[in-house]
């Protein structure tokens, strides 16, 4: 099942560190419904964890809404929050970016109009497509 059948899933979380795990496990569950491979689900969990961590660290203590959408070929997660870019150290962004480079097929981190916007895309590899 993909969200092409059901519509996107949105999750709004308070900007608390405990919520990183909540977002990660939500992403994992949706990826599992889309029949993603075990390795891809592991990648999604890492990517979403990086995403929420940056949003919490740069944010202005407001709720964060994540939007999860799957199609036959991709898993996309988008989120944004009012932010203070100076809250993030250069090393924090560099390390997170290095991780996202490895675990996501595409990602975007953009500071615009005092907001931090993030988007990650993971191509879906199911057991069927992996063996094709």
């Amino acid at each position, binding site marked *: 099942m993909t969200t092409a059948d059901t519509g996107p899933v949105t999750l709004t979380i308070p900007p608390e560190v*405990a919520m*990183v*795990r909540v977002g990660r496990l939500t992403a994992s569950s949706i990826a599992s419904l889309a029949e993603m491979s075990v390795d891809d*689900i592991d990648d999604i969990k890492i990517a979403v*964890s*990086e995403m929420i*961590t940056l949003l919490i660290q740069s944010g202005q203590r407001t709720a964060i809404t994540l939007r999860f959408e799957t199609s036959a070929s991709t898993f996309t997660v988008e989120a944004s929050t009012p932010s203070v870019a100076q809250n993030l150290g250069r090393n924090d962004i560099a390390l997170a970016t290095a991780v996202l480079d490895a675990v996501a097929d595409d990602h975007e981190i953009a500071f615009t109009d005092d907001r931090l916007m993030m988007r990650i895309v993971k191509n879906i590899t199911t057991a069927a497509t992996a063996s094709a």
Partner: protein
Amino acid sequence: MEEIGKNESIRVLIDTDGVVVAEGDIDLAGGPILDTALLRVENTEPTTIDLAAVEFIDSSGLRSLLAASRRAEERGTHVILRSPSAGVLRLLSITGTTDQFHVTGVAADGADR
């Protein structure tokens, strides 16, 4: 074993040999508890962290390990990562930080899905 702290992500203990034992997820919530334990054992050289029961780690957790490595290097010693899971090893590899640690043993990977 002395329990240093725990929350919804992680439980961290120090065993009788001064080894820091982490169980669960090392993320934004778990990192600070691990930091507390690592600072407690910095009179032990080298610093050993048992990661056999760590199911997940992200870059915020990795920063805790890297900070311990930097402090150890300043003392002229190093950090040993004992029995890291495949997930930990992968994160070290993709961030190019494996060389910052001495890695011993490899545990079966545990996933929290």
